[in-house]
């Protein structure tokens, strides 16, 4: 019997797990997927919001405002890239000016400092590529950008380094109450835990209803995005929002932490909770909506489109509480925007809930809050680069030329705790395949490195989930064992000239 089982390894589950790893608790983190951060965490805007959006008094407002300032120290400890580039909510009409003023007042009531309404001239000097119908904007300097999956991967790894057990491909099929706690049943066995924390994203209501009477429901709302090549990332300096309407925050544009331009999302309620298809009409809508912000967005530079699902609760607010009917079962549900921003504060709150329920938690002296540093090879000085190559020559081999990723970085991403096991897992951690060629050149190389490091055959390497096979088997010619003599001779001759054995 372990102390705590966390269901769902997105940014919420991983940060909760990492927070709980500070204490003398046996913690397991379960996810139905083949990697951490594979749900909503993998596909969202990656924005750390200032906190003026949510209605005062809501959990969304509270945890947003508490969460935002935690990112500097957290990202420092977990070695995650985070940039406070500030955000602008831009008004393009007089009625929108009213909205900007209302957001300002709401921000002040939520306790957001440093907010300022800036007028057209200053606005256009900050953002010269903004459409010149812009009138004014709400400027929030504390807003930032982050890779949401990067922080989740980092938190999972640091949690695992501090003793959290991570169980992937564990699809929770049932949860039963027992005398001392819960039995969590899945196809790959069962976990017994005194307490369960439900961080299951778009499936959180289903997990809840496995053990407790229905209390809330979750609808998946899809959002679609474009990613543009890095040359386009310099178009804007801030996160640029349009004025929110009844329908939501609207399409935004921002540069990503790695310098791409991100344009999206729309919002569309969908049937089911797994449909991540992009559609032409919605992407056209995103494109049209973004034109209001600027006509200069070079959609010819699109390198990828994607969609993500928001876990929208019928309660309109985050649900973070221990179930009244089922003590020991804690819901962390309905974590839609600003959920990423709120995540570290939510993790603290869950810790406090757990401490309250357990009558206090005992700290582990050996807790190490620091994740082992990641090598971002291209960011190093030339001297450091050469030092590293002398130590490990794999840093001298560029595998992904679009993103300049070395073999050394890929191997490290595979060999870490909660390391990459799949092509997408490597891409998520160190970015080969994220660039303009989308893995056309580096894909086969990454596949071979994965096979080598994991001691598998290349045909066993998958793209993402366990059935997402890439290769179907060897070609016919591989079955020929003895090559004709002439071919061997030519091969040797060539090898001689190339200086390779």
């Amino acid at each position, binding site marked *: 019997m372990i102390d705590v089982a966390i269901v769902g390894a997105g940014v919420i589950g991983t940060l909760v797990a990492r927070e709980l790893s500070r204490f003398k608790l046996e913690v397991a983190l379960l996810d139905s997927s083949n990697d951490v951060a594979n749900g909503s965490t993998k596909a969202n805007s990656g924005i750390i919001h200032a906190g003026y959006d949510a209605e005062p008094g809501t959990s969304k407002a509270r945890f947003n405002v508490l969460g935002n300032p935690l990112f500097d120290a957290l990202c420092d400890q977990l070695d995650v890239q985070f940039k406070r580039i500030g955000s602008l909510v831009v008004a393009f009409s007089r009625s929108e000016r009213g909205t900007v003023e209302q957001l300002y007042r709401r921000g002040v009531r939520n306790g957001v400092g440093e907010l300022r309404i800036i007028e057209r001239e200053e606005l256009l000097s900050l953002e010269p590529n903004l459409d010149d119908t812009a009138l004014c904007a709400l400027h929030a300097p504390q807003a930032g950008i982050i890779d949401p999956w990067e922080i989740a991967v980092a938190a999972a790894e640091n949690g695992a380094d501090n003793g959290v057990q991570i169980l992937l491909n564990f699809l929770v099929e049932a949860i039963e109450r027992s005398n001392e706690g819960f039995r969590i049943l899945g196809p790959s066995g069962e976990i017994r835990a005194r307490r369960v924390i439900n961080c299951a994203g778009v499936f959180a209501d289903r997990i809840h209803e496995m053990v407790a009477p229905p209390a809330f429901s979750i609808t998946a709302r899809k959002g679609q995005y474009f990613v543009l090549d890095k040359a386009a990332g310099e178009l804007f300096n801030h996160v640029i929002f349009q004025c929110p309407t009844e329908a939501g925050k609207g399409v935004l544009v921002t540069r990503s932490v790695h310098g791409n331009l991100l344009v999206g999302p729309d919002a569309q309620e969908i049937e089911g909770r797994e449909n991540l298809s992009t559609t032409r009409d919605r992407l056209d809508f995103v494109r049209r909506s973004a034109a209001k912000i600027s006509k200069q967005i070079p959609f010819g530079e699109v390198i990828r489109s994607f969609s993500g699902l928001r876990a929208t609760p019928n309660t309109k607010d985050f649900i973070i509480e221990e179930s009244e009917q089922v003590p020991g079962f804690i819901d962390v549900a309905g974590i839609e925007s600003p959920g990423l921003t709120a995540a570290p504060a939510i993790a603290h709150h869950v810790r406090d809930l757990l401490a309250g329920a357990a009558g206090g938690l005992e700290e582990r002296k050996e807790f190490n809050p620091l994740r082992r540093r990641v090598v971002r090879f291209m960011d190093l000085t030339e001297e450091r680069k*050469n030092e590293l*190559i002398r130590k490990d*020559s794999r840093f001298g081999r560029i595998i992904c030329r679009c993103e300049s990723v070395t073999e050394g970085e890929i191997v490290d991403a595979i060999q870490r705790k909660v390391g990459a096991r799949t092509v997408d897992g490597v891409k998520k951690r160190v970015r080969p395949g994220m660039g303009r060629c989308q893995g056309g050149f580096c894909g086969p190389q990454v596949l071979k490195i994965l096979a080598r490091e994991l001691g598998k055959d290349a045909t066993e390497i998958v793209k993402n989930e366990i059935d997402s096979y890439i290769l179907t088997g060897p070609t016919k010619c591989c079955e020929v064992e003895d090559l004709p003599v002439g071919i061997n001779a030519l091969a040797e001759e060539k090898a001689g000239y190339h200086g390779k054995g």
Partner: protein
Amino acid sequence: MEKVDIVVIGGGPAGMAAAVAAREAGVEKILLIERDWELGGILQQCIHNGFGLHRFKEDLTGPEFSERYIRRMAELNVPCKLDTTVLEITGSREVLYINAEEGVRTVAAGAIVLAMGCRERSRGAINIPGSRPAGVFTAGTAQRLINIEGYMVGRRIMMLGTGDIGLIMARRLTLEGAEVIAVLARKPYPGGLMRNVVQCLYDYDIPLLLRHTIVEIQGKERVTGVLVAETDENSRPIPGSEELYECDTVILSVGLIPENELSLSAGVKLDPHTGGPIVDESRQTSVAGIYACGNVVHVHDLVDFVVEESELAGRGAAGFVLGADGVGGTADAGSGAVGAGGAEGAPVHLLPGEGLKYVVPQRMRGINGEERLDLFLRVNRVYGQSHIEVKGGGEVLKRVKRSCMNPGEMERVRLNKSAMEKIDGSDLVIDAVEVGE
């Protein structure tokens, strides 16, 4: 900092041909940098035949073709760095590279030849809607996996696009036992060479569906099917015409893009029509002493023309460095693009006129001792009986007949000495003119 006369970036056919030509023109210190572990570039995975028909009057496979240049490189003792990636080039011709043995190094070059080739347009760039399962490959990636790594990529295949690599791969996949359901072309004509359509599709009974495209990819983990729609005269899908095809693999052959990130780092100006550097007749770019050739300049159909162009660049670069030594003409490294062969005055611009997608070279300085000038161009639609006309100063300098032309086949027009003599310094405009029956 190490200094060499010429650094060639890329060890495919373009880079090798340029290096060989530069050495044959008398340049001593040449360094060729290649990121793969062997020379040959994409030719190494092109195990089909059809290479060298123009160049060697022989029908060679890709590796056989490259082998000729690899041998020549060895004979001439041209040094190469393999497994080495160039990270940056500066306008002052310093080349920053990285490899496992030496780490990060900079070499100063008298001249640089850019021969980085091209990359394939991806699913993201053409924005096919649907899910994101495994089983979507570009044709070149599939070709590498099959021909170099020795693995098959699927069993039941739908191919989108009719670029030459795609057509070749439709046949290759069939030979490996896969079923290619169909090859789709968004336009009313195929994008690749007619000879490949015949030899790779018709001869193997692979259906070619013109005016069709994929409007949705389906499948959660692996591709399970695609929705295919007919397209209208603007190549856009016609709503209501969708049909579902079950398949486990989608192969994309939807265009090639010259790889010019390094060129841009050196300040080289690009032509929006080709996606490659603006070059003159010796393949010098807008930056003095930086030359470019092969698919990095414009995407070629045939390697035979790639090596021809690359020899121009190799000789051009040789002229530049030898000239700078006082052997040849005069080079003015400080004033932008100046040919090394004693060219004078403002350049003549070559402009794509009626019906043309692009023309290479885009400008002309002097003739650098060449007896003739070859223009490479593509038309922007299918033409029947037609003329290509080169006009300058209101006069037609050259007119050639074509029985048909299509954008998938690059056209070459040769200006001989007599035509060249008529060039009076005004810009040249090249038109495609359809003639009646």
